[in-house]
């Protein structure tokens, strides 16, 4: 509860900050300060300090899983702010509002990670989505940004419609006429057609939110069109939030019916892996490549949804953390680049060796090379599927896709280190490089001592 209320309040504060603070940098500093407060408050909540005693009427349910994810999401946002706060403030004329919207999104994420009824899921998802439509279009002069915003809006609203129809079906199928997760499927030995239809529709809609194929089409376009710093936020934290909602929904409501829906998740995962990876191969712009890469990673994350075992829960947190850290880091570099095609990266290692080193670590992590968080994350996903004893074909497909992913990640590496070129000169503050290195070290630490993160799932004072 700490996170929801504080993030909402922080949103309001940021909204007014534009009036009192004239300089972008001070607004950015305030935002960083705010996110630190939010992060600390969430950590404290995990440690048993609840600032607000609110009776949620069982609408929200806070557990270690959701709270830990919140920590990851807020920490990711902190990293984003540390690296790109000034770039966010510089998108347009309303720096305070941009941060306010981001805090509102975080509020939505906090809800989406702790909902206990479909109503809160719906509200949470909408609180995430509506500010994002605006953030996507916040670069108002840029036609690409406009276009992305409208596409996102239309498709997002459409998927909301799908979700609502699904919710309605689930409601109708519920014996108790309830939206509570634990009551949705109760008393159903066999799956009724209504329940199944509802499940499929809500799956499609959430698949849209996390951009799983074939509901992913918005993602590359929107990520490409949105201001890069916002893309970074959307592709990592928001996506993670939507995914956690997905996991919560299936884990809490339908886990007994696993055998009924696993095949659909497997199909989605397979399609996502294939389309995400294969399409990424041909991209010419790093930004767009990263958009497809984010789709591809969802394919792996869906493994966790498929299995929903202990390993999956542990792994998905690690996956989101590792993936977000690496992607935020890469986008932070892309934000600073004038030319973010692959050629733009030529010779970057000569011009900015530390930047290139950090980028290398991020890319290796995304590619799933050991000693980085990305490897263990993938490991958890694969192992969780193998634990079930089925879906080996999916694992093998995943392997091939991971090998394909090497192609596009290493293109960046090759450009940075091995291709001829002077390299763009970027204006970087020393702080930027330092924070980037810190992020890179975190990625590596996640790969060596994942238990530092995962053990938090089991050490909790609620």
């Amino acid at each position, binding site marked *: 509860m700490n996170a929801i209320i504080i993030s909402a309040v922080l949103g309001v504060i940021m909204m007014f900050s534009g009036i009192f603070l004239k300089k972008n940098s001070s607004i950015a500093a305030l935002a960083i300060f705010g996110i630190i407060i939010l992060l600390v408050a969430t950590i404290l909540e995990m440690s048993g300090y609840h600032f607000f005693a609110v009776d949620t009427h069982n609408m929200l349910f806070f557990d270690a899983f959701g709270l830990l994810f919140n920590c990851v999401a807020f920490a990711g946002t902190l990293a984003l702010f540390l690296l790109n706060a000034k770039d966010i403030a510089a998108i347009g004329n309303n720096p305070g509002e941009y941060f306010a919207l981001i805090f509102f999104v975080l509020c939505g994420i906090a809800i989406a990670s702790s909902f206990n009824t479909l109503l809160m899921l719906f509200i949470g998802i909408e609180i995430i989505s509506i500010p994002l439509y*605006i953030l996507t279009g916040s670069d108002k002069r840029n036609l690409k940004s406009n276009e992305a915003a409208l596409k996102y809006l239309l498709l997002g609203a459409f998927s909301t419609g799908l979700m609502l129809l699904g919710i309605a079906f689930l409601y109708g199928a519920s014996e108790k006429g309830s939206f509570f997760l634990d009551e949705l499927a109760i008393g159903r030995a066999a799956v009724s057609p209504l329940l199944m239809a509802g499940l499929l529709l809500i799956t499609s809609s959430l698949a849209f939110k996390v951009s799983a194929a074939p509901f992913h089409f918005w993602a590359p376009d929107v990520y490409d069109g949105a201001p890069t710093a916002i893309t970074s936020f959307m592709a990592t934290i928001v996506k993670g939030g939507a995914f956690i909602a997905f996991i919560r929904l299936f884990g809490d409501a339908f886990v007994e019916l696993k055998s009924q829906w696993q095949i659909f998740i497997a199909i989605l995962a397979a399609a996502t892996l294939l389309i995400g990876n294969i399409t990424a191969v041909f991209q010419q712009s790093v930004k767009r490549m990263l958009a497809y890469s984010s789709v591809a990673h969802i394919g792996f994350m869906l493994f966790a949804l498929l299995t929903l075992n202990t390993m999956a829960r542990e792994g998905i947190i690690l996956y989101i953390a590792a993936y977000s850290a690496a992607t935020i880091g890469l986008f932070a570099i892309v934000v600073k680049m004038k030319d973010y095609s692959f050629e733009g990266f030529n010779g970057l290692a000569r011009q900015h060796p530390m930047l290139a080193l950090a980028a290398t670590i991020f890319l290796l992590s995304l590619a799933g090379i050991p000693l980085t968080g990305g490897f263990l994350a993938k490991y958890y996903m694969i192992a969780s599927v193998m634990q079930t004893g089925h879906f080996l074909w999916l694992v093998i497909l995943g392997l091939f896709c991971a090998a394909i992913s090497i192609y596009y990640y290493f293109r960046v590496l090759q450009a940075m280190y091995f291709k001829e070129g002077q390299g763009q000169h970027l204006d970087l503050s020393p702080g930027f490089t330092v924070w980037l290195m810190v992020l890179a070290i975190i990625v590596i630490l996640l790969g060596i001592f994942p238990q530092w993160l995962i053990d938090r799932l089991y050490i909790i004072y609620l």
Partner: protein
Amino acid sequence: MSLTQILFWFLSALALFSAIMVVISKNPVHSVLWLIIVFFTISGHYILLNAQFLAIVNLIVYAGAIMVLFLFVIMLMNLNAETEPQKNKWLKIAGVIGGGALLLVLVAALKDADTRNRMAQTGSGDIGLIHNLGLALFREYVIPFEISSVLFLSAMVGAVVIGKKD
């Protein structure tokens, strides 16, 4: 056939017809007007189901506020039948087939649902009354109610950020 039934069929037929007209009207303004009719028929359904509060809110919020907003924007942009660009014929057919296919699979999936024999209570049942709804809203549903304020706030901020001229 009772009055309820007659009304149900009438409203349903009108709703479907109007909905189709929304989609096929060339003039955007006509579409808006047809949509308002759909909303009215749905409000009618609500009344049949004794959900009076929602019926009124639907009229006020949807048919009133939202559709007026639509109309306003359309007028503002001076869109009319002539400016309405036409989609490629094949794409249209594909769209219709897509919608039809969805309808088909949904019906196929639901036709033998186990709710087939259950009834929706019409006329009676007072959960749809404003008194009961209000009590529930401010007791059990106070959290979502409050939280949706965040949604409004963000929508407001958003509309300002987007709408404001630089």
